[in-house]
């Protein structure tokens, strides 16, 4: 009627359509989201309409194959880089951090499971340490030879049967005897998985495989104290981060008697020996198996520590004697 009422009506109309639009938007979005959860029949009806469900045309099979190949390709491209050697699993930085934390915790509570130590070792094998080790190897003639020839230590390459027949004072016989005494074999060394550079991976594999030799020339057993001592030796001689971690943290979960033994005798020995002896990574063990063990020790600058098993047995014997002595009073 009047201009004012017309204007009012105009505003009301605008407001009404605004509300309608909002309602339409809300309904549309609710339907979309809902159809993602509940709309299976609607989706099937759409598929029938498009000719995607029954009587599929010839193109369908090609399209399906293509989608599948694309998905498989994206599954394979989940790694940051392509694998650089057999068994290589490249990791993102976040995954490496996660691995360090998980395997660190697992190694602390279950060091007897070799897998945990292996993973922790690889996760903490920082490039600068491996590069350092490579430089150490490159600055020595034998080290260069090892890097050139890339030897692999297994029971076949060592010819275990021949080691048993060697003279008693040779490295080969000492190694064989130690293996038999501790009940282990050189084949239990896991392959390297998470280290990115192939040369670094070989150096780390070499380090892992020579671990038993470090045990054998020092006559340290595979019990936890012996392992910590060898780790301390490796940490001070080679600079392996995981070995350093293990040396600092692992004694904390031992009994007081064991800890004292470590702190007073074995760890000081290990650190002193490691710092003063020649770099053990440069020793070509397979080629000097018939060398005299004491000569080798003199060359390297190693004096073996007291026999750990004997020390422990002595203490056990004393404890037993004390117990028997005082039990007779009861």
């Amino acid at each position, binding site marked *: 009627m009047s201009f004012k009422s017309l204007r009012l009506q105009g505003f009301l109309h605008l407001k009404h359509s605004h509300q309608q639009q909002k309602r339409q938007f809300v309904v549309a979005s609710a339907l979309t989201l809902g159809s993602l959860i509940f709309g299976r029949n609607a989706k099937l009806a759409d598929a029938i309409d498009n000719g995607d469900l029954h009587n599929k045309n010839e193109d369908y099979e090609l399209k399906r194959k293509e989608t599948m190949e694309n998905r498989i390709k994206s*599954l*394979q491209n989940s790694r940051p880089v392509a694998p650089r050697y057999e068994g290589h699993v490249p990791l993102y930085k976040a995954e490496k951090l996660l691995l360090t934390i998980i395997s660190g915790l697992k190694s602390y509570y279950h060091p007897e499971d070799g897998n945990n130590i292996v993973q922790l070792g690889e996760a903490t094998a920082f490039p600068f340490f491996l590069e350092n080790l490579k430089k150490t190897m490159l600055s020595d003639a034998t080290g260069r030879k090892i890097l050139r020839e890339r030897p692999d230590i297994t029971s076949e390459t060592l010819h275990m049967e021949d080691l048993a027949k060697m003279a008693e004072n040779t490295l080969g016989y000492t190694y064989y005897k130690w293996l038999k005494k501790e009940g282990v074999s050189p084949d239990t060394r896991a392959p390297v*998985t998470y280290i990115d550079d192939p040369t670094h991976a070989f150096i780390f594999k070499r380090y892992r495989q020579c671990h038993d030799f470090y045990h054998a020339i020092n006559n340290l057993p595979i019990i936890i104290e012996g392992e910590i001592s060898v780790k301390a030796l490796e940490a001070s001689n080679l600079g392996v981060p995981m070995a350093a971690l293990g040396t600092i943290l692992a004694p904390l979960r031992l009994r007081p008697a064991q800890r004292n033994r470590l702190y007073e005798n074995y760890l000081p020995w290990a650190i002193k020996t490691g710092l003063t002896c020649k770099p053990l990574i440069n020793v070509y063990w397979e080629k000097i198996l018939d060398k005299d063990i004491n000569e080798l020790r003199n060359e390297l600058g190693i004096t073996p520590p007291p026999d750990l098993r004997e020390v422990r047995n002595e203490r056990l014997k004393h404890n037993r004697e004390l117990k028997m002595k005082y039990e007779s009073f009861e």
Partner: protein
Amino acid sequence: MVGSKAYNVVRIAKFGPIRAIRSLSQTARVFSSSSSNIGSSEPQFTHFGSQTVPKDEKEKLVGNVFSSVASKYDIMNDVMSLGIHRCWKDRFINKLDAGKRPNSTEPLHFIDVAGGSGDIAFGLLDHAEEKFHDTTSTMDIVDINADMLKEGEKRALNQKKYFNDSRVRFLVQNGETLDQIKSNSKDIYTVSFGIRNFTNIQAGLDTAYRVLKPGGIFYCLEFSKIENPVIDVVYQQWSKVLPVMGSFIANDHDSYQYLVESIERFPDQETFKSMIEKSGFQCAGYESLTFGTCAIHWGVKV
């Protein structure tokens, strides 16, 4: 299959020589086409996950995968499916609802193929015993991989049930041939998360048809195509993370990579259903579980 064609020929012969000749020539065509397939250039290669390998290699490679995961198979399943696989297997067993009914005289004969670890097999027997008080039905647990069968027997030993039991047999068999299983001898053929590892899935289905009695049920639980696009995106990310997690936990990256890729290659629900129908099963159908992550397929031999 061929047997049924012969039956049709005999039937049509009653109606007249012309029809008989036509159907005979049809049968001859079927015979000739099937024989020509054997000699002709069948593709010599197949897929092993994403690699293309010669067909006879695939069996060995799959065998290696399962030998290396056999001892940690249960952990692996729990990690891969976040424990949901137990719900799927329960649904599988309850839906089948198999067991010798009290008024029946003959026990049921089950066969569980690629069921080395024994979880479905023992679950079926337990269900039959609890619900129908059936303690006489027999079970053949077959698997191509002896390590997995060993795990199954170890599980039977640990739970002190079904070990050294005359009802339960553990056999090393190839699911595509099942040499030691007589034709028309089984009431129920189950395969759970095993058929995607067959080199020739259609051959496996044909063998299932051969081995089942008329009236027997083919019952299969396997990964399938996800129907919900949101869940699909989540699942794809999960599949990328899985091999790395397998590498951390089980020290085995390649087996998990193979498993994830073999899941991707397996046909979707409708395609697998038509493969089941192609083998001769009737009343084929499927039920998707967890938005299509896996599906139960079934078919009845008539």
